[in-house]
């Protein structure tokens, strides 16, 4: 009978699991990473933009690598506010074009896994972890959905001194390990739907005013989500566009709208309609984003176990951070595992230092800073309903001020604000927003 035993088993080959695996493999730790997809990234999608600084932590030579895992450098980024009548664009050109890149997961994760393989990490694809093995209150391995051998059809067990859960947002094993109670609630996650679109040749550069060394990343706010709390995104890849929308699951359920209906409505907005005219849909998919924040943060460690990345809920939607936090947490867990292996102690006592590392990092401080943001967004729909329209109207008045007494224009702007939200309302929103961070 075959029996397997490793120092560390990592569940999930996303950025968190792969970052962790690379760090352990580099130190020669006997590690197995288990990924259910045909290859890493094959089942996954994101926006998305990745940040050079975080990638360099695991691939120091990035972006000077032979087969680039990324699409375009982000040279222009900003916001587009959607009103029913039109849009207001707010853009910034980046001085450092190597700071951030658009990417597609099927390529990005596959690159990281190739890199990890070269470092000596063992990756078992097409294999799903279905349970964890608990012995004397200690996690001591995992059970997979594959038989032990052609003859012995019982599910295979893989023993490990430490199990690292990098399973992503659907954190079933984290629950089984007792690190978090029960499944997440609909208001704790955002459902994102995304399309990869291909424009007729040459149109991408033309419509977005880019050349092949430039790329754009835009967040879309307002009418684009039919006024529901959430945002859209539009990123340029090498030959395609990533376009999608994310909406809090609870409000989506209450709205009685189907995800694809929201996407279709968004694409029908005159501005996007023109921008995406003639686009062919190459891919369509949906994925959850964990936004339970600090309130829903699982215990990050237990006896013989640690949890990293999305499984722990380490994202900052406002700053488009997720992949990088996954990488940082994966590295911190790897450092902790190395420490534990050196000591020969895999109990909570030793693994607690993962949490200590985490608490010192900016990830935790940010989670603390943003801890009331989700509630604020859910309770202040005007951010998504009223303001984008208001911003549009203000700019409309401002830009059609020619031939008028300018004081009258200012008065008109103020009247519009009063009508739409009320001065009191605006002031309250500003103070509330401010209070989030102080």
């Amino acid at each position, binding site marked *: 009978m*075959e029996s*397997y035993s490793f120092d560390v088993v990592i569940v999930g080959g996303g950025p968190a699991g792969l970052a962790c695996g690379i760090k352990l493999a580099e130190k020669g730790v006997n590690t197995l990473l288990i990924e259910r997809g045909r290859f890493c990234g094959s089942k996954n999608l994101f926006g998305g933009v990745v940040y050079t600084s975080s990638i360099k932590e695991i691939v120091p030579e990035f972006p000077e690598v032979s087969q680039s895992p990324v699409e375009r450098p982000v040279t222009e980024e900003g916001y587009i506010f959607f009103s029913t009548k039109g849009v207001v664009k707010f853009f910034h050109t980046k001085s450092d074009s190597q700071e951030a890149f658009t990417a597609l997961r099927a390529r990005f994760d596959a690159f990281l896994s190739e890199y990890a393989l070269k470092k000596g990490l063992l*990756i078992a694809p*097409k294999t799903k972890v279905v349970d964890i093995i608990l012995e004397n209150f200690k996690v001591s391995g995992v059970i997979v959905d594959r038989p032990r*051998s052609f003859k012995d059809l019982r599910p295979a067990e893989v023993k490990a001194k430490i199990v690292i859960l990098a399973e992503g947002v659907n954190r079933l094993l984290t629950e089984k390990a007792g690190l978090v109670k029960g499944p997440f609630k609909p208001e704790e996650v955002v459902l994102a739907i995304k399309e990869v679109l291909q424009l007729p040749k040459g149109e991408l550069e033309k419509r977005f005013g880019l050349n092949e060394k430039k790329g754009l990343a835009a967040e879309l706010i307002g009418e684009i989500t039919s006024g529901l709390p959430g945002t859209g995104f539009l990123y340029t890849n090498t030959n395609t566009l990533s376009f999608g929308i994310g909406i809090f699951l609870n409000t989506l359920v209450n709205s009685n709208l189907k995800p694809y209906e929201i996407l279709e409505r968004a694409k029908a907005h005159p501005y996007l309609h023109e921008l995406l005219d003639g686009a062919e849909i190459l891919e369509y998919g949906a994925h959850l984003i964990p936004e339970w924040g600090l309130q829903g943060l699982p215990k990050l460690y237990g006896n013989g176990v640690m949890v990293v990345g999305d499984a722990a809920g380490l994202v900052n939607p406002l700053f488009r951070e997720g992949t990088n936090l996954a990488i940082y947490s994966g590295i911190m867990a790897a450092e902790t595992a190395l420490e534990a292996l050196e000591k020969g102690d895999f109990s909570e006592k030793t693994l607690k230092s993962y949490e200590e590392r985490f608490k010192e990092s900016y990830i935790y401080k940010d989670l603390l800073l943003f801890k009331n943001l989700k509630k604020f967004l859910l309770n202040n729909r005007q951010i998504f309903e009223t303001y984008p329209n208001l911003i549009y109207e203000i700019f409309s008045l401002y830009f059609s001020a020619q031939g008028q007494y300018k004081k009258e224009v200012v008065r008109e702007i103020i009247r519009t604000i009063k009508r739409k939200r009320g001065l009191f309302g605006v002031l309250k929103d500003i103070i509330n927003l401010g209070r989030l961070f102080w």
Partner: protein
Amino acid sequence: MLNILVSIKQVPDTTNIRINPETGTLIREGVPSIINPYDVVALSLACYLKNQFGGSITVITMGPPQARLALKEAMEFGADRIILLTDRKFAGADTLATSYTLAETIKYLERENPFHLYLFGKQAIDGDTAQVGPGVAARLKVPVITYVTKIENIDLKEKIIILHRKTEKGVEIIKAKLPVLITCEKDLAKSPFVPLSEILKAVKSEPEIFAADGPVKFEREKLGLKGSPTQVKKVFTPELKKDTLIYDLSTTSIDEVVMKIIHILEEKKII
């Protein structure tokens, strides 16, 4: 003990493949390569037979360096030996050159331990010629049985195999003496539920590399483009010709239309 050889090909996953409307070429970017689905059937059959009779499986493929991934995946079916034929001199081979190269390799591999069964897919989904299996059989001078749908029995002592083969008219049940070369239809064998043991073996495996100048001794001029009389001029989807006549009943009377139809049918000697 059954000594089995399986020959496979790496192909683009055509379920994901798209034609670039601008240029008319295949968009291969990001399209993952897979093992030709009929070759997966061959591997599955090999896996099943090995588990039933014991023995060993050797898998070969000819292709670019990245075809090693197809061979690594073949390990999951319980393969014991994987061999990649890769060399610039093999490139551009048509079915003639391919079957020569594979057959010579197989002869080399079975110098000491002859194979009982040579398994091929019925055809490759990116070429659809179905010629390589039979071509190899002819060169090995073994019987070939194409489009096999079922193995009824193998008697190792008597060296007899009984199997079903699909034809246009129905099913032939054939009894043959081993060794034979068979090409596999899709219902021949179900994919096995690969155990973790084989997944891990596959991950750790690397194929042996065979090049044009060794270890097999090839006649150079029979390899690759040089050994390929087939020249592809153009690839296109044939247009379906439909000569349609439309009669408008608002302008022509029904009697007239019926007469016209009868006339045409008579002209074409259909009635």
